[in-house]
């Protein structure tokens, strides 16, 4: 199972970095997706800079990156590591992983944009695995500029 979960994470990274329109396909219809800071997480504060309930809101996030948001062109690169899983009798999988995200602009050298961890629930859907709940916790409380792409 760990190989299948790792494959999902690697696909997730590629989707965000190279074909963000495909990123919502990796979530269930009722999925929740949140990106928050260490500070909000540690203090049980519910606010999350990205807060999606249901795949509709996740689709809108991908739409905004491509259609409505004004930003300097940049390229993101996710490195996802330290994947660990716990399988439940109901078939769902509790998964944790670390991420590092690098950011490259057209006219600058690459910089480290964000580091953090995922706390996720993954479920089988037919032959594939999908995220039913994904919580991304940024290690830093301060974002460099803005969170334009999903984490």
């Amino acid at each position, binding site marked *: 199972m760990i190989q299948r979960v790792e494959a999902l994470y690697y696909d997730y990274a590629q989707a965000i970095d190279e074909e963000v329109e495909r990123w919502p396909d990796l979530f269930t219809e009722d999925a929740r997706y949140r990106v928050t800071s260490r500070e909000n997480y540690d203090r049980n504060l519910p*606010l999350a800079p990205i807060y999606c309930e249901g795949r509709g809101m996740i689709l809108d996030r991908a739409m905004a990156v491509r259609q409505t948001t004004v930003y300097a062109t940049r390229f993101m690169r996710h490195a996802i590591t330290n994947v660990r899983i716990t399988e439940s009798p109901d078939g769902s999988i509790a998964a944790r992983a670390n991420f590092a995200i690098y950011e490259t602009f057209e006219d600058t050298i690459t910089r480290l944009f964000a580091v953090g961890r995922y706390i996720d629930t993954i479920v089988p859907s037919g032959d594939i695995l999908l995220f039913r709940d994904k919580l991304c916790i940024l290690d830093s409380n301060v974002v460099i500029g803005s969170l334009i792409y999903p984490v």
Partner: protein
Amino acid sequence: MLETPARTPWTRVPYRWYTDADVYAREQERIFRGRAWNYAALACEIPSHGDFKTTTIGDAPIVLVREKSGAINAFENRCAHRGVAFCYTAHGNAKAFQCPYHQWTYDLKGKLIGVPFRNGIETLGGGMPAEFNLADHPLARLNVAQRNGVVFVSFHDDMEPLEDYLGPAMVPYFDRIFDGRELKLLGYERQVIESNWKLYMENLKDPYHASLLHVFFATFGLFRFDQPAWCTMDETGGHSVMAVAARSAEATEATKGMKSFRSDLKLAGPELIQPVPEFPGKAIGVMQTLWPNLIIQQQSNTLATRQIVTKGPNSFELHWTFFGFADDDDEMTSRRLRQANLVGTSGYVSIDDAEVLEFSQKGATPYPDNEGVLEMGGIETDDQEHHITEVPVRAFWRRYRDVMEA
């Protein structure tokens, strides 16, 4: 050199005001540590005796703490001994503050109550001179004012009451959100933006850009030229309100001139922008900017304070504190959290602003002797009943010139 119109100097902004280190230093002294009530916190962040938080006013780190009586005290985060920023955690609860360097200890009023080895060691000597008096070395205190759960501080000793500082045009808008109900902290967002801090203030005083830059606003009808809207300033020009009433997402005469209106786009999760009315009056969105460091945001049902923290002339941090009310039901809290997607570090409209501000800084920096032009909606600084204007920005520069050139 600059040819600034003598009668309406606020229609021009020299670009050096965004980049010059001397201008920045003067702002710290005249504006943030001058005659101003700076936003510092919501009282609900430090609800109990001994609760503290650190924050920054302009460049200056400070500590806010609630003492036993319930009063909130504010100090410079600077030990009276060697200047150490003694409080190095963002928030917590303390019985006293102890500097880590030499363990000088202060009570919650800022009084120095302990100096280790003050009398030396009997067999070895040492210690402070006999005339050294603890009472002469307290923490430097700031003045504190509160209104309906919002905490302001001032480095200035002779401040007028907060209500007079805000003025009769601003107090009703302030009280519209902060109506005395208990506030509930929902969470924080923080970001660093590589531009001068004043560009952010201007951005929140500039309704002209909102329909043009923000495709999301224009397309989904949250903030658009063809909505009833108005701009109100206080007498000094430093504070302002941009308000908009009634959503409309349909194509109209006005949207023909807006490249930002995209009739082809639909939201897959439209619950994001389904607000419920909760405040008196017809406004559905109000941005209130209070000199010098605060924006109070009501965008539909998402509420936040946005605090500007300066980081030199070319950079600032924006600290967002999202809140609701203690009597909100779960549905209202969820609504506030969902709508928070519109704003903040990943906001559907806020991202555009953060990016464009960095473009502004980039464009202006090499040309300190050039200047920006502010004539949309005329050249004066009076209130206007529409959003095809830059009038609150002009009023801001009127106040700025008054403070900086006095």
